[in-house]
């Protein structure tokens, strides 16, 4: 019995197909302007690669900002709940999940059974979201992957004066003009991100094990800096791409419901 999850975000859309608790296929694409187009495309790609059609899918759950607009889902579940569920599958011992996506960031705590206890989100501004890193990477003429790797090479990371993406951008340009080594600027960017996120995470109280999901979880610079700020080890996700956490959670909710379980 196949179950599927579709996570339509503002920057990326993800689809996951599962059977028997294992991932059969997963796809991540850049989102289109309209969420239903993104959903159709990403799910279409996943089905095609798996050699399946939508009729093979017993139940599909949608999540993310565009979830209500997806035509082929049976149910919409909040992305926060899906991220929690997905993170639990990715790291069975996880109790605190920190997710930094393209346009928002959130932190949630799970109980020992994986049920959501508390959550907090912050999307009032770009700082503390993937957008901050995107903007800075562009100014530094780096890819996001390169930005993440820079921290390890830095000898003296700069401290950003401002938490604001716009002002920080101006600061980066100033540092470049002053011939500050790029790795030091990049490390400063990663640290600023981590610092902002740590305040949010501490707000809900930290409990081991802690993991990170979302695209920014792939930035080692941010993850390492966040560990230092929080004073707690963050378990790295190796099982799958951490960006898939929401879609995985959605697929798991779908599977549970299809099997007569409760959410």
């Amino acid at each position, binding site marked *: 019995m196949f179950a599927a999850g579709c996570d339509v975000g503002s920057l990326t859309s993800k689809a996951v197909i599962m059977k028997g608790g294992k991932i059969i296929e997963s796809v991540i694409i850049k989102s289109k302007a309209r969420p239903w187009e993104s959903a159709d495309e990403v799910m279409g790609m996943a089905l095609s690669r798996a050699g399946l059609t939508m009729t093979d899918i017993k139940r599909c759950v949608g999540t993310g900002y565009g979830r209500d607009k997806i035509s082929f889902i049976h149910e919409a579940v909040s992305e926060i709940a899906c991220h929690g569920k997905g993170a639990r599958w990715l790291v069975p011992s996880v109790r605190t999940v920190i997710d930094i996506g393209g346009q928002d960031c959130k932190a949630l705590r799970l109980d020992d059974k994986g049920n959501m206890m508390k959550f907090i989100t912050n999307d009032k501004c770009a700082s503390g979201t993937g957008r901050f890193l995107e903007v800075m990477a562009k100014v530094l003429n780096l890819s996001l992957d390169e930005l993440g790797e820079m921290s390890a090479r830095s000898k003296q990371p700069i401290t950003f004066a401002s938490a604001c993406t716009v002002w920080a951008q101006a600061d980066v340009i100033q540092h470049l003009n002053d011939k500050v080594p790029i790795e030091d600027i990049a490390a400063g960017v990663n640290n600023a991100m981590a610092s902002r996120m740590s305040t949010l995470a*501490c*707000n809900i109280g930290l409990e081991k094990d802690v993991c990170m999901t979302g695209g920014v979880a792939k930035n080692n610079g941010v993850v390492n800096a966040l560990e230092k700020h929080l*004073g707690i080890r963050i378990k790295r996700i190796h099982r799958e791409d951490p960006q898939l956490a929401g879609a995985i959670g959605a697929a798991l909710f779908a599977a549970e419901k299809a099997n007569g379980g409760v959410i």
Partner: protein
Amino acid sequence: MRKETKEYKFDWMLWNTFAAASRLKSGTQKEYQAMLKYIPYFNRIVDTLLGTGEPGQKFIEICSKYMENLTFAKERGKKTAITTFCFSPSIFYAMDIVPICLEVLSVMMTFIYKRGTAEFMDYCNEVGFTETSCSSQRGTSGAYLAGIGADIDMFVTDTPGVCDTNANSFAFASAYLNKPFFQLDMPPDLTGERSSEYHREDFKALIRFLEAQTGKKLDPERLRENLRELARQDEIIAELEDLARMVPNPLPISYNLMVYASRFLFAGMPECTGVLESMLKIARENAAKNISGLSGGVEKLRAFFCYIDHYAQNMQLWQMLDGNGICYQGNILSHFWSHNAPHVAEYHKEEAAYNIDMTDMDSLIDSVGIINSRMPMIKSIRGPYDAPNMWLEDTLGLAKMYKADLIVYNGTPGCRNTWGMVKLLARDTEKAGYPTYIMYADAFDERVQSWETTEERFMEFLKVRRLV
């Protein structure tokens, strides 16, 4: 909060910092210069203060003393009270309570720490306090909320009716830590029988509260002793303010800061008087020679700060002003409205000022009550800004008295009550002929706007308005 920040009590560390700084000049000049290299984040502030000679030395010593008092309060069997800068500590000293002034500690840390009080401010947010609240309280409050400071016995404030975000931070912290709380409430009117009676009854209630907390009755003699010293301080401050009217102003750039900081820490105590006397000696000498207090010796502009200063690390605001020949003509924080203050004489607003009457307990209470109600901000930010005795009148009067060339507003984004009408104030002060600059920085948090940008914009204003 980083692990290392939680290792030591922050106020104990501050005490050690100031205590060490107070010994810097006890060696040779060569040793002194060598030591400065080891304190890269606050060597300029130390040098600026110690450069003033005895006043700076004494000022650093009293900062150390203040921190020592609160660090060892419990060991010495004294109660501690978290309070605010605009609450005169006279009553605390008279009752042997050790005051812990949140904002002054925030200033100290913003001056001397590389990251200022960022971690403590963020900690407030972690425990549920709003991040939009004023950074001046958050900077220190966060440390106490995290339990990495002295034991706190009570919270006492006098900002309801004047500054919500201040009063609210006290209310939050006291509820969070489950400690007793007292507020002196300020009516919108400063003068008049109703307001006087209100201040009186409220202060009596405060005394009852403090007596209940300490288990001791207020000794009128102790209060008299403090108020006598306070009166002496008022005389010195009045003379300093008068000298500041001279062109050129003979007061060195950091004097205003030392006046208000000393008073906030040690009102009515010999520690403050010592600093003031020392300052007056040098101010008189400079005045006799008709020389400028600026280190460059040439006064190009006179700036009146209508609100508070910017406490960027290492006293960068003062460095900027001094370096550009801009004479600092004071701000709202250094005017206490004693009857003998020059601005009182200038305005003939006797009713807005205070007199000290030590005849009996009732008159003593009335006096401290009225002294408190005339503290900076408590006096002039309570009612509509354009009402009699309120902020506009004070600003224009002081700017005129000090022959200011421009007026500067600086505060914090958390200052709801001034951001609620500062544009109106600026319109009126511009209309009165004073180029007025509104700084959008945060006096205690460079993450809002870096000092470099703040300085750049300030200088740009001067250029655009053809003041330089």
